[in-house]
């Protein structure tokens, strides 16, 4: 059953890509066509993706989940590409296409007034196609190609309003910073290819993620005494760090909020930034490969866990001191991606992916809510100049509140609670150290705190934006409906991820799920659930006490947290000065190196060069003479000769039939003569 979808999986990315191609040829005025093409093609992809999801069911059966084909052959080396339909791909396809479809619809309203509506849908479709291609790749080469394509789409869409200097700079920054990580990824893939001779993940036992190849990788030793598997894993993880905004390459993601809100929701919250996490999940067998053979303890995974834990808590702290509505969410995204990395690192593969999918839904919802609020307030993004929007925008408020509770992890009814709880549970069980667990727990409190602060400042209290009060309005239905659907999805998702019936996690690990109500009341589970709920509650209460109970009245009133902890607050407000540090180190040393070379060039080499120059000048004169009198005439003459030949030969085709017939006869005679006597 359903095995046909495996053969036809390529249609899923192709539909939006074809739409993007057609849209590139559509003139600006074709707005209606752009909307139909974009949404229509993505609907096709969504239907097929859900078919793929059910086709990847553990019980769907049929050996060989991968379809490989030869793309090119160099000499005797075939270059093979292929796709794979495993539960991971199925779940990602369904998530990406569904979220993308809702955001496409939302864009109809949000981007309605933009003159470049057609271009927007072209880029967005291009992104969707590339992203869907990325998640189905069986060949890491294919994955890398799509990886770069989504990077390009991200660059184009962050800089969509390229006339704004900030947007252009943000696009450039995103492109350059992620490129640093991509360099590591590329090196990792080359290393992997030289070691295993293939970039196919699964190939009936010959793929690079299958037991035979992994055994070889674990045995060989690379530089510094680490195994080849660890070295490759760490290089590949560099790509994931760049793409998923992990410390220290997270600086591009908050700046990326200069793009349109649907872009932030789709690319920089729900899907593309999660590609790094997905990459780690895709090469999990490689990451997990270790001499000892115990799961979740390899050196590479330990690195992943630490990077994730640090990112999770640090970004959450920064988010607590930002004023730009979208930037708060951006740091929150960085923090949540850290949680996912941490989950994968401590061996909680399925729960990490569950959090990825849950996060995609509730973070998309939060961004759509934020976009709707920004849309209603005439593109005001500073939360100090918002406030009291609950009155004018009830639907947006409700949707945003659902997203907030899911992100903060309010117990029982929101998917974020169950996934985050699973992560904490996995971290508790990690034998290496308990510190990631504690960092994660602290992050939960911070998350609840900054989300409460955001809700209180945007929706609570009085409007602080001055004159525009009269014109605040709820967004149109085309924007409200996707939000409501996402909100319902966020609640429904919580049903399939509880410890009592961990359906999604079991699906991702390829097993049939069973109801195990007892697991819910296990001592350790209950204990961790209780602790995280307690910390979350403390965060909420702290947020409410500082921002909700006595709402601020004026836009320029100082932040309550600043009054309490001025030093900490301003450090966090300046984002721990990462940008400044990079400016002072990387950028400045690059500039310094350039200066140094410039000086060397002017002062040292130039003297040497001066003399060499005179010699060269003399030679130059000589060659100029030869050029002018020998080479140029010869080349010009040659070109003229070629044209002249053409003209001359063209003269033979004068159209005289008699001559034509004679030429044919002469040709025949010449051939016969040549063969006889030649």
């Amino acid at each position: 059953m359903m095995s046909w979808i495996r053969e036809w999986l390529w249609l899923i990315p192709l539909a939006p890509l074809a739409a993007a191609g057609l849209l590139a040829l559509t003139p600006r005025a074709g707005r209606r066509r752009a909307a139909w093409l974009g949404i229509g093609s993505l609907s096709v992809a969504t239907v097929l993706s859900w078919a793929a999801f059910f086709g990847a069911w553990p019980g769907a059966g049929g050996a060989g989940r991968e379809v490989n084909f030869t793309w090119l052959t160099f000499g005797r080396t075939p270059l093979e590409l292929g796709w794979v339909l495993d539960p991971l791909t199925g779940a990602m396809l369904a998530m990406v296409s569904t979220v993308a479809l809702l955001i496409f619809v939302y864009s109809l309203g949000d981007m309605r007034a933009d003159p470049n509506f057609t271009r927007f849908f072209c880029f967005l479709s291009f992104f969707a196609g590339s992203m869907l291609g990325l998640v189905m790749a069986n060949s890491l080469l294919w994955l890398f190609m799509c990886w770069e394509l989504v990077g390009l789409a991200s660059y184009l869409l962050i800089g969509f309003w390229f006339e704004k200097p900030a947007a252009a700079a943000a696009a450039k920054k995103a492109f350059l910073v992620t490129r640093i990580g991509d360099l590591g990824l590329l090196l990792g893939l080359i290393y992997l290819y030289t070691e295993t001779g293939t970039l196919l993940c699964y190939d009936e036992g010959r793929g690079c993620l299958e037991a035979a190849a992994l055994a070889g990788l674990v045995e060989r030793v690379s530089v510094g005494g680490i195994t080849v598997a660890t070295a490759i894993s760490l290089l590949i993880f560099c790509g994931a760090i760049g793409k998923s905004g992990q410390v220290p390459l997270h600086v591009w993601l908050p700046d990326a909020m200069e793009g349109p809100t649907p872009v932030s929701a789709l690319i920089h919250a729900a899907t593309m930034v999660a590609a790094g996490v997905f990459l780690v999940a895709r090469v999990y067998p490689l990451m997990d490969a270790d001499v000892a053979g115990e799961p979740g303890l390899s050196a590479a995974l330990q690195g992943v866990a630490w990077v994730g834990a640090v990112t999770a808590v640090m970004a959450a702290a920064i988010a607590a001191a930002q004023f730009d509505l979208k930037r708060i969410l951006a740091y929150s995204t960085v923090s949540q991606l850290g949680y996912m990395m941490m989950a994968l690192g401590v061996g909680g593969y399925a729960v990490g992916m569950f959090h990825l999918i849950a996060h995609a839904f509730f973070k998309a919802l939060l961004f759509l809510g934020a976009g709707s609020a920004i849309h209603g307030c005439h593109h005001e993004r500073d939360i100090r100049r918002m406030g009291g929007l609950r009155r004018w925008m009830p639907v947006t408020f409700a949707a945003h509140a659902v997203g907030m509770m899911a992100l903060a992890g309010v117990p029982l009814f929101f998917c974020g609670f169950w996934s985050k709880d699973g992560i904490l549970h996995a971290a508790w069980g990690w034998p290496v150290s308990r510190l990631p667990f504690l960092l994660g727990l602290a992050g939960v409190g911070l998350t609840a705190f900054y989300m409460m602060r955001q809700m209180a400042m945007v929706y609570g209290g009085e409007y602080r934006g001055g004159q525009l009060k009269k014109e605040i309005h709820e967004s149109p239905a085309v924007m409200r409906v996707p939000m409501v659907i996402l909100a319902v999805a966020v609640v429904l998702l919580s049903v399939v991820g509880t410890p009592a019936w961990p359906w999604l996690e079991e699906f991702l690990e390829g097993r049939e799920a069973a109801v195990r109500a007892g697991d819910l009341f296990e001592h350790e589970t209950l204990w961790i659930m209780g602790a995280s709920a307690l910390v979350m509650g403390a965060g909420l209460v702290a947020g409410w006490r500082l921002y909700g109970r006595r709402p601020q009245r004026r836009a320029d009133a100082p932040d309550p947290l600043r009054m309490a902890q001025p030093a900490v607050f301003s450090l966090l407000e300046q984002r721990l000065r990462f940008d400044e540090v990079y400016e002072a180190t990387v950028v400045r040393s690059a500039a310094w190196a350039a200066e140094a070379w410039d000086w060397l060039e002017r002062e040292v080499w130039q003297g040497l060069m001066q003399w060499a120059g005179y010699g060269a000048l003399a030679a130059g004169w000589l060659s100029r003479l030869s050029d002018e009198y020998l080479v140029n005439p010869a080349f010009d003459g040659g070109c003229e000769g070629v044209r002249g030949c053409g003209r001359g030969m063209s003269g033979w085709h004068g159209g005289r039939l008699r001559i034509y017939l004679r030429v044919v006869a002469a040709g025949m005679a010449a051939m016969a003569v040549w063969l006889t006597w030649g």
Partner: protein
Amino acid sequence: MNYGAIAWALAPEAILALTALAVLGMDAALARRWSVPVRWRAAVAAGVAGCLGALVWMAAADPPGRLAGGMLVLDDASRFVCQALAVLTMASLVLSIETALTEHIGEYVALMLLATVGLMLMAGAENMVLVYASLELASLSLYALAAFQRESRHGLEAALKYFLLGGMSSAFLLYGMSALYGLSGEVELSRMAPKLARLGMDPLLIVALASVVVGLGFKVAVVPFHLWAPDVYQAAPLPTAALVASGSKMASFYLLIRFMLEGFPELAGRADWRGWEGGWMPLLGMAAALSIGLGNLVALVQSSVRRLLAYSAIAHAGYALLGVMAGNAEGTAAVVYYLSTYALAVIGAFGVAGIVERNSGGDRLENFAGLWQRSPLLAACLFVFILSLAGLPPLAGFVGKFAVFAAAAGAGGGGLGLIWLIAWALGMSAVSLYYYLQVLKQAYVREAEAGRGSSAAWRVLPATRVVLLGLAVAVVLLGCFPGGVLSWLRAALGS
């Protein structure tokens, strides 16, 4: 002989022939009542339906193999050629709605289909009598198709030249074949081969071989038997020219390959640098070198795009001869692949040229100026077709050319004997870029001339658009994913 089996095997050809008759009858019956545009659409729709029927039949049925004691060999490879021919005919038919060149619509479409039947039989014929009969069916249909614009003096002149030169080359071919029969007493290529091998370089055999090369060289338009091509490409009705340039060239090349490889395997000779031996190899090598040189050089100075395409077609025939000279299955597969990709691109280029011609009144380079503004779609399609003809990656033309050159380089046990010809072809390909880019420069860089509605959009029929876009997509896809078709062809020809 089992006639039932033959009828069953030839069903695709029969479908096309019956469609031709049906179109004639339909048009005759309805001519009075319907307007000309409607009649065009109806006749073309019927013709396309016939081609689709033949295609479906060929795709569904297993290739019948040797028939009638070896008279016809319908194996996988020749059926591939036939399918390509059906596709090319469909494209030419749809493009002819746009030109609406005549009121004798039924006859026009029927002749197109009959020409296709002839070409398809050519691809399967192993028997010299059948070869000649099918060749004449195709040729006579094409002569008549070339003469369809009776009010155009140039058109008639070109058609007459085509007919007279074609008649003479047919005479050469017939003479050569009768001499071959006289020498061997056989009419079937494969049975003829061992008997001819025993004769060595007999004077009569030399004359026969040269005559056959003349006859087939005319059909594929290689120097010095190419003289008809520029006139016909320029002045014949556009869909005819497109079919002559694509379908006829493909079938004739396939026939040439079978004739040489199966009829004269022992008389190949050698065309290596400093290693010449008499036979058909040196003849074809010389023709290839001359065609590549002359075609590319003369194309440089053309101002008519159709004529430019004609000279470039001569050069392409020269490139394809390299694959024939490889003399093995790999070379044949490369030639078939090369010609199918070439045919797709050239039909597309002719289609765009036809639209330009109809809207601006000429096919000179200046008429293409500002095409980008008038119709982005046409310009984008033209971009793909021209760059594929020029052989730039990642388009199909590059892969085809690469395969042909690789086959020629690998022939003869890797001795690189043909390297002189490959080097010459590569050098001339660089020259060819100049005139191909001239066309694109006009389409993309130059502004449309003032007056004449300057940059107003041109109306293009939806069907034409679909066909052009389909051709362009096929060219891109065959370029990006060459592996499947090419290795399939190699396997089909190797067995």
